[in-house]
């Protein structure tokens, strides 16, 4: 039957007809609808998708190669307070910190690419959002949301360009999606041109975004963010930087930029319902940043990068820096012992910024010698909600903490956000530019003292007096910014914009050598002096610590740990102190597995750890900038010439 059917040639006819139908519908056949990729026309058709695209731009700041660890920690040192990366120059992070970087370094290219990918994501949002019908004709809510999204995109782009310029100097710039750029083989744009563009963008972005209290409070940027970032960018635009010519210089009209900074800070400082200092310096870190709070009640966190558990969404903050608990933890922020002596003995910020111990047997402190001090703002034992505290299982504790199983001991990601601008920065920026523009006025001093006052737990008599000269006030600020922002990735770039990095490294190295040798440290030429009792040779050569002292006691008045049995500031007592944590108060053990005595002043290990390595390859006129990544130059020869000295 079938055979006959076939023989009638109907099949042939059917096939021919079929072929014709296929030919007619071949346009459709050859355009199967995409399933796993979303066209921009769909993304920018409604607010929630547009928000997702803006989130994509935000995302480029997170992760290992963004502020997750590289930009926030690896690239932000060495300076006069912290040495990055550890001793040695073999590892990539050590090259990045000790200025021995080559263009072929495997990290910096990833950061460079990731930030430009973020700029492209922001450019798409900035291009398409205003073209969405809802932007002009939508409901009031839609309009407000889209305006905010546009403002956020402009702010993200500004932050990314700002960071690129700080790290690499002049970089290529375009302001529209790449698909509209006729020649992608772009040359580098002068940084002043980019800065001016960013300042204009942020002035516009401010008008688009709401204040933080007007919307749900999370890590999204608000009006205050744009203002603070604009102040900061203007400050850097008016500061020193290494130019392509190989010289470090600043623009002639730098005071014009400082005026912008002053105006922005002034506006913010007059609107304290939105942003002001959180009352407690320790509480700011321990109860907000380390407690995984999206924002603090005072709005001191003006700009931050949000992190959460996911590929390239997270941070290694607190895991690769901070202290060890039960033997686990990173120590990339090596805090210089000389920095500890910049603080006066009453400054509560010292014991927040420093962790001179590790945590053993779950809660007890084990003192560290002066050549292995850690940064403390993101310390593991403060992280809560959730906590990543690993029990050693070795002891019962008297000071209960929330313990998670010991199996988590190698977790690398703690979802800690990275603060980009705090309100304290606004105050100190104001003080700085006010001093440059108008001298050490009361307004300048007041802004400074507000920060210092909190640093001294509100005791006004402990705040340093106004030196009364422009130069003296500047030096005071150079010091104050070191005290306030230690470990926040700010210092190195401050020193560069003041053209003091080379000086600072030389002088701090000399002081480290003095500490190692046990001779008195000398005050720095470029900042206000250390407390007088720090510049003697009578600092303790050894410190004793108690065997069973919990690192975190619960009394509210104490700012830091009380593990030490003798003072940082007085010579080591002749007799070994008694251990008040052991029954019968015997003398502190100084040998065996409980050797509770560590080397402090005149510690020759400082030479091996710090003096040999800090600023190892620093050359002024070169090291202020990183080289353009080799992969980028390979892909685009128009990026030549390479940065000076490389």
């Amino acid at each position, binding site marked *: 039957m079938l055979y006959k059917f076939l023989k009638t040639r109907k099949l042939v006819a059917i*096939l021919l007809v079929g072929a014709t139908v296929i030919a007619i519908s071949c346009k459709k056949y*050859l*355009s*199967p609808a995409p399933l796993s990729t979303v066209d921009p026309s769909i993304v920018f058709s409604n607010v929630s998708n547009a*928000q997702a695209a803006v989130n994509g731009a935000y995302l480029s700041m997170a992760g290992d190669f963004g502020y997750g660890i590289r930009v926030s920690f690896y690239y932000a040192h060495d300076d006069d307070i912290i040495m990055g990366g550890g001793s040695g120059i073999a*590892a990539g992070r050590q090259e990045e910190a000790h200025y021995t970087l*080559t263009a072929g370094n495997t990290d910096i290219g990833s950061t460079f690419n990731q930030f430009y990918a*973020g700029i492209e994501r922001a450019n798409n949002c900035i291009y398409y959002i205003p073209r969405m019908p809802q932007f002009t004709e939508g409901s009031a809510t839609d309009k407000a949301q889209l305006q905010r999204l546009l403002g956020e995109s402009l702010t993200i782009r500004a932050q990314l360009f700002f960071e690129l310029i700080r790290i690499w100097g002049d970089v290529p710039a375009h302001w529209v999606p790449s698909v509209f750029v006729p020649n992608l083989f772009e040359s580098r744009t002068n940084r002043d041109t980019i800065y001016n563009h960013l300042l204009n963008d942020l002035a516009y972005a401010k008008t688009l975004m709401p204040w933080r209290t007007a919307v749900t409070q999370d890590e999204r940027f608000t009006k205050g963010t744009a203002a603070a970032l604009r102040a900061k960018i203007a400050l850097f635009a008016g500061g020193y930087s290494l130019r392509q010519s190989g010289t470090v210089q600043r623009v002639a009209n730098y005071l014009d930029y400082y005026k912008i900074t002053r105006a922005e800070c002034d506006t913010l400082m007059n609107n304290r319902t939105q942003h002001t200092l959180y009352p407690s310096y320790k509480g700011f870190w321990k109860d907000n940043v380390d407690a995984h709070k999206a924002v603090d009640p005072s709005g001191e966190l003006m700009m931050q990068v949000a992190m959460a*558990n996911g590929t390239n969404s997270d941070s290694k903050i607190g895991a690769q820096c901070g202290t060890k608990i039960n033997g686990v933890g990173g120590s990339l922020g090596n805090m210089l012992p000389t920095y500890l002596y910049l603080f006066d003995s009453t400054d509560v910020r010292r014991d927040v910024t420093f962790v001179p111990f590790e945590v053993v047997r779950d809660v007890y402190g084990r003192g560290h010698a002066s050549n292995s001090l850690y940064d403390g703002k993101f310390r593991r034992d403060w992280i809560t909600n959730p906590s990543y505290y690993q029990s050693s299982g070795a002891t019962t504790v008297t000071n209960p903490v929330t313990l998670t199983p010991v199996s988590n001991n190698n977790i690398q990601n703690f979802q800690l956000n990275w603060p980009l601008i705090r309100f304290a920065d606004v105050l100190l920026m104001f003080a700085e530019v006010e001093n440059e523009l108008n001298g050490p006025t009361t307004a300048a001093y007041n802004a400074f003292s507000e920060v210092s006052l909190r640093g001294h737990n509100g005791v006004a008599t402990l705040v340093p007096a106004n030196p009364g000269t422009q130069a003296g006030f500047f030096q005071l600020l150079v010091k104050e910014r070191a005290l306030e922002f230690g470990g926040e990735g700010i210092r190195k770039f401050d020193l560069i914009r003041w053209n003091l990095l080379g000086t600072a490294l030389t002088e701090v190295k000399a002081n480290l050598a003095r500490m190692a040798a046990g001779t008195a440290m000398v005050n720095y030429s470029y900042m206000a002096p250390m407390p007088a009792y720090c510049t003697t040779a009578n600092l303790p050569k050894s410190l004793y610590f108690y065997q069973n002292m919990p690192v975190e006691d619960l009394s509210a008045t104490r700012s830091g740990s009380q593990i030490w049995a003798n003072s940082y500031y007085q010579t080591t007592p002749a007799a070994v102190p008694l251990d008040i944590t052991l029954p019968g108060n015997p003398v502190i053990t100084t040998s065996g597995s409980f050797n509770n005595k560590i080397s402090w002043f005149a510690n020759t290990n400082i030479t091996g750890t710090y003096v040999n390595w800090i600023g190892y390859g620093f050359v002024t006129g070169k090291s202020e900038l990183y080289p353009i990544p080799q992969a980028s130059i390979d892909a685009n020869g128009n990026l030549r010439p390479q940065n000076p000295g490389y």
Partner: protein
Amino acid sequence: MNKLLVLLTIFFILPFSLLAQNKTIKGKVTDENGAPITGANVIEKVTKKGVQTDKGGNFSISVSGTGNVSLVISFVGYISTTVTVTGNDAGSVKLIKDAVTQEDVVVVGYSTVRRRDLTASVSSISAKDLKDIPVNSAAAALAGRLAGVQVITSEGAPGADVDIFIRGRNSITQSGAPLYIVDGIQLDNALSVLSPQDIQSIDVLKDAAATAIYGARGSNGVVLITTKGGKNTGGKTTVAYNGFVGVSTLARELEFMDPYNFVMYSYERAKYTENPTDTSVAAQYIKRMSNFDTIKNYINYPRTEDWQNRILGRNALQSTHNLSVNGGTAATQYNLSLTLNKQEGLISNSDYERKLASFRFDHKASDKLKIGFNTRFNQQKVTGAGTSDVGGAGSNRLRQYTRYRPLILPGQQEDTYDQNLDVALNPGNSLSLKNPLQLIQAEYRLRTVTTYNYNGYLNFNFTKQLSFRSTFGYDVSKTESKAYDDTLTNNSIALGKQPVLNLNNNDVTTINNSNVFTYSNPSLFKSKHSLDVLVGQEIYQTNVKANAIQVNYFPLGTTPNQAFANLGLASPPAGISQPKPSSTEINTHQLSFFSRLNYSFNRRYLLTLNFRADGSSLFGPDYSSTIPLTDSTNRKWGYFPSASFAWKISDEAFMKDITFINMAKLRLSYGAAGNNRIGAYGFTTGYSPPSNAGYGLSDALAYTLTLPSNLGNPIIKWENLTSKNIGLDLAFFHNRVTLTVDAYSNTTKNLLIQNKIPPTSGYTTQYQNVGTVRNNGLELQLGAAVVQNREFTWNTNFNIAFNTNKIISLGKQDKFTANSGWFSTTNNPDDYLVKVGNPLGEIYGLQVDGFYNVNDFDVSNYVNATNNARYPTLLYQYKLKAGLPNPIAVLSDYVAPGQIKYRDVNGDGKITLDSDRTVIGHALPKFTGGFNQQFSYKGFDASIFLNFSVGNDIFNANKLEFGNQYGQDQNMLSIMNGRWRVIDANGNLIQKQPDATTVIGIAPDQLAAINSGATIWQPYKSTAGYAPMSFAVEDGSFLRINNITIGYTLPQSLVKRAKISSLRIYVTANNVATITGYSGYDPDVNARRASALTPGVDYAAYPRGRTVLAGVNLSF
């Protein structure tokens, strides 16, 4: 679908017609010498009913009617003859040997042609050639056999990928793989899906004249595979068994340091750097640095461990069993084949298993209708992590299996887990080492590829001249990759040292349907003109679905099997969520129309014209998009014409007197073909949700969309290949010697390149039609039947192919660089150059010029109070002499005696990657080929096969990594024993870099004296040591004795009693010996296959074994 139903119905309903039988004719078929011919076909001319002769050459056939019967008697390799039989006895029929193997039928696109009528360049290999090569991979069987067909195995692992390049590389970044057609159906993974035992013939179409009918995707050549079908055995069933077992061993080893030299270097490193981590490593071996004198105890250390041998040195067993059942009548033939392969890898946990079942059925329903059905099932399981990975060094394992410290510390066992190594000694980039025995167990990998092929065809002859053929294929290939990383692995360490599971599925479904009308008239209007016309249409569509799940935080102690069976066992700690699963689905469609015209006059002048139009969904515009298109030009269609002409000179009258030439044919062709093998949606830039990521608002992953790394290019279109070919086929001395010579020039224009674009665009790549590449070449294939008599035959076959590749244009660019990514998938300096005027595969790096010697430095007294006190013996400062180039921009160390020296290529007085990298090697060979000898003497047969490749360089990245010590406590190649030393014979420091710009040392004459025997530089301690450099480039030319086989076929008289029709036993050695100057495991390597821009990289490739096998071919 309907068509399939029709086929199936026909298949089951149609009964096998039986005809009345009236008489039986008996006879015998012999050769010229009277020896019986087994398996000759005897077919009655009218009814087409047929039988085969038995062992004695005898046949018996039942025919209808009683009158004269014409029987057609044929046998491969003999001239067919027709005998007319009146009675019942056909007597003894002699078949005359036809040495003209050229008479074979060759499969060309959508039809077959006799080789003597071929106008195009086609190379073929048949089952007869394949039988000498007992291997499991059909691709491996092809290596070196065919001129112009280069087979490159990526590495030595069982089931490893194989790349085939026909006439060089026509594309730059797109797949250079040829198109595979199996029984008329496009099948991308053909060579891994088929068992060599199931293959009847492989025909490789090389020039555009032949490939243009495939238009799309034909530009890299076409491999046509015909599988074994049933035979007309007169209803008798033939059962055959082929099997072999064998063992592989590591063919070659790398030389690593022994414990003494290893400990010595650890000491030297620590002494020099004074870095606490280095010191702690050295202290593992000698307690404290002052114990230098104890290092000598390691000279005859009893607890040496040769990890390479321990891990890679297994005697790996393999076995293959193939059973086939076939038979048939003139109307119906079938073939069932079952294959089981089991192969152990050289590494103890890497195994390979394949089960294959294939059934082919052909049925002639009537004179006009022929249908067939072929179904294939293939399941392949590969276990073990192997040595290589597409990722960077951190995820490759050869380093793990060879670089672990070559000794066992006191108190430790061979498999002791040393925690220091993954916590304290992690040098970054996940490059810490683990105990290899532990690691092997910690990494569970199982890749299962299951393939189902359903193919069918229907052939209908309307008239003698006009026929129609419809072919339909539905293929499903499912790959499931299971990975489970236990606590020891880097993946697990990053996640709280709890086991991590990854489950990836990749399902590819393809539908292929072609409908072809053929008109064939060998004698137009009874003239000498003959005409064949073919017109057809084809669709090809693929659906690729991929799903990936990662599940973290399995309880400690969970076994892989438990984990995969209970994904819910995993429970992340508070505040941590599991990664999001991810999936993609991509559809691509292709629609084509094609036609071919063959014209010949007097079968002497042959002309073929082809034309094909292909439409592909991979090109724009996207009619499904909702945005109005700014440029709606349709770029989906490509048009590919070709023409070829052949002249059979030997048929001309003037050739009649030249008797030693039996055949001479000249072929000329010119044609176009296309290539569209790019990723989908290259013409748009679409958003997608990032994999397991999102912006972390309030500590949760917010809904996030991101852009891809590839920037869409709306104007991309088909890549276009133009091919010119001139060929000559000759046969001499009674067809005993045959020679085929082809010269060609292939030019590919509008190359589809996933071009690197400046990352400042926010993207790293974009598909662009840029540039032109040309391959010129010459191929020669020579065959000779040297000796041919009843007892002894000797056949030899030689092929050689020369190919030169040249980039003619790269659009607006003059050159760009590419990265093999062996060290880091993102950012080591680029190591390959793509430049106009040069060939592809140019290795790009710094030229090494030995190392700096004391004489290269100005030496002065060193005065520095602090350092003089610290280094009281190092009182001389070494400053590089003026005028000598300083490599500080490449290396992080300051220039010092004993440091590697690069050549300052551009003469600017300093060494930079940017200006001093230059071409340091050429990865493509100048020529390749093979040489095969086959002998037979009575029942014995033997063959020896050699293949060679000459003029290609290899980028030996193993040597770069293993010759440096970026991370502490990692063993190095023993060539580094000859390094420049920075300590003297008593372990005292003799040279030091106390700060970034100072190098100090002992007196220059002493320093020189201690290092007078140095043959190589100080190893690097930073990643700068991995910059591409000429040290790692080696000549990869080789001559390999690929295969030696000796077989013996038992005499008929003996086996007959066991009812066996034939029995052959053989032994084979594969990869017998390789003559090469290459220092790595094997010169036939291509470890970084993801991009065609970076051929010839040897990094972490699985070493190749030497195999000895014994087997049997048995048929009943």
